[in-house]
């Protein structure tokens, strides 16, 4: 059960790229132990929000506080306790899996790195990939290796950008179950973006639906479905994408 203490606080984030406004005053929090889903159709501002939260892009205005500290003032201190995995990044393909993990373990100053790597490979059921070349892994294996990298430093906050994209339903289901288990066992806070509504329903305690750079809906998946009178999140998503659902009931 998530506590009320916010681990992450995004406050009135605005991001303008030239003539286009990607985010219009986005505010939300992630509580300790909570998994928050960030959804939206393409161009809604999810990726921009994620990049602002990771410090990859600077906001036009607004602040990001993580663990109570300003992201830009305490970036290194914060990043030591945060990690990230995305379907759109990969680890150097020409290194072995253990070599990649060893490098990131050193970057994150993981104590007893060899032990931690072995532990994660076992948890993620990829011990057999230890000496494999990273670039020769299947999509499912690669996702799990990326997750191993993201869990190396026992992060307090994990940002996952479409972790199940390009996975078959079986592997996606395994990844979701694994995340749920890790979240329960470690009290990890997670910010999760996905286009897969099943991910959101199964993994997230709460969700935010972005549309045009603003929050269109916020609540538990069930609350959002009820408020917009939709049978499923997928129907809700399609309704927004096709302009059939107006921005009502924003909270």
């Amino acid at each position: 059960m998530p506590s009320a203490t916010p681990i992450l606080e995004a406050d009135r984030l605005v991001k303008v790229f030239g003539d286009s406004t990607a985010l219009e005053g986005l505010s939300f929090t992630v509580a300790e132990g909570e998994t928050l889903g960030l959804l939206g159709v393409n161009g809604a501002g999810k990726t921009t929000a994620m990049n602002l939260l990771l410090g990859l892009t600077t906001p036009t205005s607004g602040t990001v506080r993580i663990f109570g500290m300003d992201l830009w003032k305490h970036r290194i201190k914060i990043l030591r306790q945060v990690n990230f995995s995305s379907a759109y990044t990969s680890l150097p393909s020409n290194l072995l899996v253990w070599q990649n993990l060893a490098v990131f373990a050193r970057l994150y100053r993981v104590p007893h790195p060899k032990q931690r790597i072995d532990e994660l490979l076992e948890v993620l059921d990829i011990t057999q990939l230890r000496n494999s070349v990273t670039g020769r892994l299947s999509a499912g294996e690669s996702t799990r290796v990326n997750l191993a990298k993201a869990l190396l430093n026992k992060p307090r906050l994990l940002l996952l950008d479409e972790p199940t994209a390009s996975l078959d339903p079986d592997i996606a289901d395994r990844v979701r179950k694994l995340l749920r288990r890790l979240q329960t066992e470690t009290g990890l806070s997670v910010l999760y973006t996905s286009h897969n509504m099943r991910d959101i329903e199964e993994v997230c305690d709460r969700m935010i639906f972005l549309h045009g750079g603003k929050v269109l809906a916020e609540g538990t998946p069930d609350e959002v479905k009820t408020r917009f009178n939709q049978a499923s999140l997928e129907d809700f998503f399609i309704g927004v994408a096709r302009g059939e659902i107006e921005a009502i009931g924003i909270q």
Partner: protein
Amino acid sequence: MPFSFHTVSALVLRYLFLYTRHPVRFVELIFWPLVDLLVWGFLTIYLQKQAAGGFPTTITFLIGGMILWDVLFRSQQGVAISFLEDVWTRNLLNVFVAPVRTVEYVAATCMVGILRVGVTLVVLSVVAAAAYGFNLAHLGLALLPFLANLLLFGWFLGMVSTALILRWGQAAESLAWAVPFFIQPLAAVFYPVSVLPGWLQPIANSLPCTPIFEGMRTVLSGRPIPWGIIQNAFLLNLVWGALAAWFFAANLRHVRKTGLLVKVATQ
């Protein structure tokens, strides 16, 4: 803690893994410099034979110039290619969201530059001595400040190349190789500054590598080590270092503001 050697060592470890896993990388480090050395070496022998004693033995300037130029080039490549490796493997975002300061990232690429220079320099020195009787040690005490200045200037050119690639993305990747050659005609690598047109000479003299190549010719001619020239090179490097750092930081700020950093990293 403003700077962490631990973080730098982690990033360097990655390149060591890369080079030790793929011996072909060493071939890339050695092959082109060796080809250059052979061409310049045989050209030197040919010119010496043609001159039949008329040419001064200082024609070995060509081999010396080629080897020292390679020091600068490999140092620049260490920075620029290390950055590109992260772009090509789509690993750049992983590094930029890790607890790595920009200065640590740049320092790691500079360390890779030193390693690349070290490997190339040893091989070229041995081959030049064995095949052409050219001994780099003839530069004596001056060798160390010569190498240090070229290494530094290579890093700064690498930072400028990296900043340009960050700013212009994939289309600018060829700059990783091209930037050093923009300055080569003015750097007095194979000929003295005095042969350049008068209006180009001040530009040539503003490059920290120019006094080094001039100094190399002075020492190889048997004259005393030109410490004044070396000091001048260090001062120019200070200015270039400050400009390169400013240029890199300004471009990094720009790409963070415009979102180009993510685009370059995920292209």
